[in-house]
């Protein structure tokens, strides 16, 4: 029982204080290759979530939302890849990217157990939370830490896109109730 509770608390803590921010604070300063990796990973995570939703979602609105996420995040990541190539930067794996990926694969497994309306609700709720987390990290850590002006500008566009997605997800969530 105790073990279960502490696991639940740990999960709650992870959710409420995003792993992204914790790690970012722990590190002195993120380098551009690390920032590029984190941003790209964050996009891949949402693409994978959208692919799962395309298979499992029941509601028409949720399916359409997943389609939008797929399209936008693929477009952002395509730009990100083009930029790192142009700048001759090799994205560098790091603890923040690893923690993000781990958290995301756990979430995918959790959502995989749900079906129908329960899946729709959980997917959209996670999209709201996830975009909120990424927006916080972009604003407080990734954008201020980026040294290259073009990378900074791409992250700023990314922030606007993600803020849009958060509002869109909140709207879809409200419609589901």
């Amino acid at each position, binding site marked *: 029982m105790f073990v279960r509770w502490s696991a639940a608390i740990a999960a709650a803590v992870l959710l409420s204080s995003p792993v992204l921010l914790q790690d970012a604070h722990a590190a002195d300063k993120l380098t551009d290759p690390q920032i590029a990796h984190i941003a790209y990973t964050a996009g891949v995570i949402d693409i994978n979530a959208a692919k799962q939703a395309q298979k499992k979602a029941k509601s028409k609105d949720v399916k359409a939302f997943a389609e*939008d996420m797929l399209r936008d995040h693929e*477009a952002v990541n395509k730009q990100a890849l083009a930029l790192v190539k142009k700048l001759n930067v090799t994205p560098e794996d790091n603890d923040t990217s690893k923690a993000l990926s781990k958290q995301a694969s756990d979430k995918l497994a959790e959502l995989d157990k749900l079906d129908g309306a329960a899946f729709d609700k959980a997917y959209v709720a996670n999209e709201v939370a996830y975009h909120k987390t990424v927006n916080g990290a972009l604003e407080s850590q990734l954008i201020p830490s980026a040294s290259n002006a073009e990378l900074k500008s791409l992250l700023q566009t990314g922030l606007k896109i993600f*803020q849009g997605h958060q509002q869109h997800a909140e709207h879809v969530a409200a419609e589901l109730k």
Partner: protein
Amino acid sequence: MKPGRFAAIALAVGSLSISVPARAATIEITMENLVISPAEVSAKVGDTITWINKDVFAHTATATNGDFDVMLPPKKSATSVLKKGGTVDYYCRYHPNMKATLKIEP
């Protein structure tokens, strides 16, 4: 063409459309980097809006009152003719943080 000359022509065209308000005008509204500009536009019934999407993302121009819903694929533009007067707020359905207003005089 010299840039100065281009600016002079642009100015001339601009002032022409201002001095002949009775004619239907074409107004350009651009979406770039998730921003709609100009954010506020005054137009008249009969005017044409050219929506220009400069982003690699799809956008929409969707009136909150349901008057129009224009799809704008990445790097594409579209036009709509204004048929009804009024102040219309519109936004992008995919990125609802993109908001702007059209003031349409009858």
